[in-house]
């Protein structure tokens, strides 16, 4: 089974380079799917702060990526999640999956994002007056994650 490669970092990442690196792992790879999450502008240009649980974050992301490798015939998985202060338009998260089958690559990337939303210990706080507002978890994310449990 291929290995998952997971990073939790404050720095930005190079989407194109990550996609190229994963695709170059094997000449049997025909499909590379990527998901890039961006900070949406909710209220003006205010930045947000992404808090996480160092140690557990890496464990949780690795567990999710490994579950994807067990469920689908993948040749590689790459997950990068940023933390700290992020402005609207900035990249937050990258998931890349590589496979010989395009449907496996698509499904695995969607699965990782759905699980990551509800199982990776990150909390978003939107900057604002009164010290900002913690973003509420969304029920739609729970529902999205539930569709993968059989």
């Amino acid at each position, binding site marked *: 089974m291929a290995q998952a490669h997971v990073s939790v970092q404050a720095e930005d990442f190079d989407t194109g380079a990550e996609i190229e690196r994963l695709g170059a792992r094997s000449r049997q790879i025909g499909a590379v799917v990527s998901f890039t999450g961006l900070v949406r502008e909710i209220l003006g240009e205010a930045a947000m702060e992404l*808090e996480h649980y160092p140690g557990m974050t890496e464990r949780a992301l690795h567990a999710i990526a490994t579950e994807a490798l067990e469920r689908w015939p993948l040749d590689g998985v790459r997950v990068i999640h940023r933390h700290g202060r992020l402005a609207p338009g900035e990249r937050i998260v990258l998931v890349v999956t590589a496979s010989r089958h395009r449907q496996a690559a698509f499904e695995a990337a969607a699965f990782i994002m759905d699980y990551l939303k509800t*199982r990776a210990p990150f909390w978003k706080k939107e900057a604002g007056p009164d010290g900002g507002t913690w973003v509420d978890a969304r029920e739609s994310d729970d529902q999205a994650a539930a569709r993968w449990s059989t």
Partner: protein
Amino acid sequence: MRVLYFAWLRERIGAASEEIDPGDAATPAELIETLKAREERYAHAFADMTAVRVAIDQDMAALDTPLAGAREIAFFPPMTGG
């Protein structure tokens, strides 16, 4: 036992982590009751238990998971990453 708090639980309690003697508490729920009885800020932070999640030694757990042997317990609201 090392206890960690994140997001608005951290803010309401006023600490990111502390060393706590769990005493007789055998589960996260019992530990929370002990803390709430001790100080008002804990009662405030843990007022709505439907919004509290727990991890034991960096794995997700339930409020009634046995604490036996745990070294690190963390309380936080539902996750909002991605």
